[in-house]
């Protein structure tokens, strides 16, 4: 028995990689539709916040993620944009991360196709160009955002667009949200949320989610979407299942495998040590 256990413990790790690959690929080829019965309170809080906003309210979305974190954060952004436009809110999308511009273009192309075909660019939503120096942008947006963003992504004058009617700075906006895998959410909370008393929410990778719990407790964040699970929760709340929900099958299987490996390896180590 001892020899068998020692052999198993020295198994080629590439076999574990292979098993993990199979478990992650299988639900992509054949979706299992495992249920998601635990919606996070912080996700629900964001959903309720957006639900409570009257039609015509203005939301600023800072999508500050790049392709490296796309699988976790892109479904969050798509779900929030979809929810906001469904609720007839006005949406302004911007980015302070140069790597995000291509992904924002993708959302821009999807809005008239399948996210909200009835909504019109310039009237219901607008996309701003990338700008460097986040702290300067955030502080300036508290005073006069047209000093920074005088034109939209395509070079059209921003001030003249119907979507910007009555908006001069972040104090005129009803909600701000930053979706990012970087520390930019901290900056938004400090330089815009706290400084200008703007209600703010966030979307982060699962890795950084825990670190934002103190901001939720103090109310500095009105809601938080964390990782692919958070995206799946939000998709479930707005009843629009997409990539986040599709990923949950794979995540559940992979987690079962990891838990199984940890338990089996510990039992084996215990056996070798004490029996």
């Amino acid at each position, binding site marked *: 028995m001892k020899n068998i256990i020692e052999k198993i413990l020295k198994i080629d790790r590439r076999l574990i990689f292979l098993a993990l690959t199979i478990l*992650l690929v299988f639900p992509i*080829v054949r979706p299992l539709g495992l249920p998601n019965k635990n919606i996070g309170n912080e996700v629900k809080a964001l959903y309720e916040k957006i639900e409570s906003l009257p039609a015509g309210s203005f939301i600023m979305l800072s999508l500050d993620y790049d392709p490296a974190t*796309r699988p976790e954060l892109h479904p969050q952004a798509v779900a929030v944009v979809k929810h906001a436009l469904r609720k007839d809110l006005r949406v302004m999308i911007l980015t302070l991360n*140069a790597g995000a511009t291509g992904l924002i273009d993708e959302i821009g192309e999807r809005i008239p196709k399948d996210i909200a075909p009835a909504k019109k660019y310039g009237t219901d939503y607008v996309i701003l160009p990338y700008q460097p120096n986040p702290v300067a942008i955030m502080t300036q947006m508290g005073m006069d955002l047209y000093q920074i963003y005088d034109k939209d992504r395509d070079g059209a004058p921003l001030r003249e667009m119907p979507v910007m009617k009555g908006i001069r700075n972040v104090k005129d906006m009803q909600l701000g949200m930053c979706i990012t895998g970087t520390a930019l959410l901290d900056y938004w909370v*400090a330089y815009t949320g706290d400084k200008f008393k703007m209600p703010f929410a966030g979307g982060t990778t699962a890795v950084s989610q825990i670190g934002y719990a103190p901001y939720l407790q103090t109310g500095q964040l009105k809601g938080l979407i964390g990782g*692919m699970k958070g995206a799946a929760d939000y998709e479930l709340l707005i009843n629009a299942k997409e990539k986040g929900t599709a990923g949950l099958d794979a995540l559940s299987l992979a987690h079962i495998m990891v838990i199984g490996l940890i338990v089996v390896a510990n039992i084996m180590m215990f056996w070798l040590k004490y029996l």
Partner: protein
Amino acid sequence: MDISLILGGWVAAGLTIFLFSFLYKDNPFFKATEHLYLGAGMGWVFQTVLFQTWIPKVWEPLTKQGDWTVLIPTVLGLTLVTQFFPRISWLSRYGFTFIMGYGSGLVIPLTISTDLLKQIGGTMAPFMVSEVTRGNILSLVNGAIIAVGFICVLFYFFFSVEHKGAVKKASNIGIYFLMLYFGAAFGNTVMGRFSLLYGRFDDLYKYSAPKYFYATHIILAVMVLYFIVDHFRTRKPSIEEEAA
């Protein structure tokens, strides 16, 4: 048929498989992709800054509106590049001085407010009640756990007093709170990494479609073939073979 879309699919599938191939064995495809990643990333950032910031914010105001004031931040920014030329590198101090002064002035007061004062306030807030009722008892218990954790973790990081007696006990409790945090953070990290891996597999599946001329299948088969050939090419001869 959109050629650029198909080509994009082949490049994306190829680069993903080349990077994953390292899990089996180091190889030249992985090395080439690793270098390409850095170059492509920098290229993307450069063109974004050039077309979305530099041209509309500097070039057009200067050439079309004759606004010379944009030269002040531009020159200050350019002084940072003088770091690469030792003879005039002293000029970069002006740019850095501006960044340091402006950055510190913004960051210090807001960090104290957001990350220190508000968090202390948040820890105390649950106890700001006139009386204990059934409605707020859970909130009070929750607040007490957070406050105990907060104080004990602070003790753990307080090195000016020797950790013995009551201080040691508090510090040890702090370790348990830290372990809980690390456990939760590690669990979330695992979930995050799986999500990223799932994202790549999802894209590989997409590129395996006939629309992309089976890019994933073909590149994967080529890589497997490469490893088989490489295995026989670099195989050390056995003792019998050497003797023969």
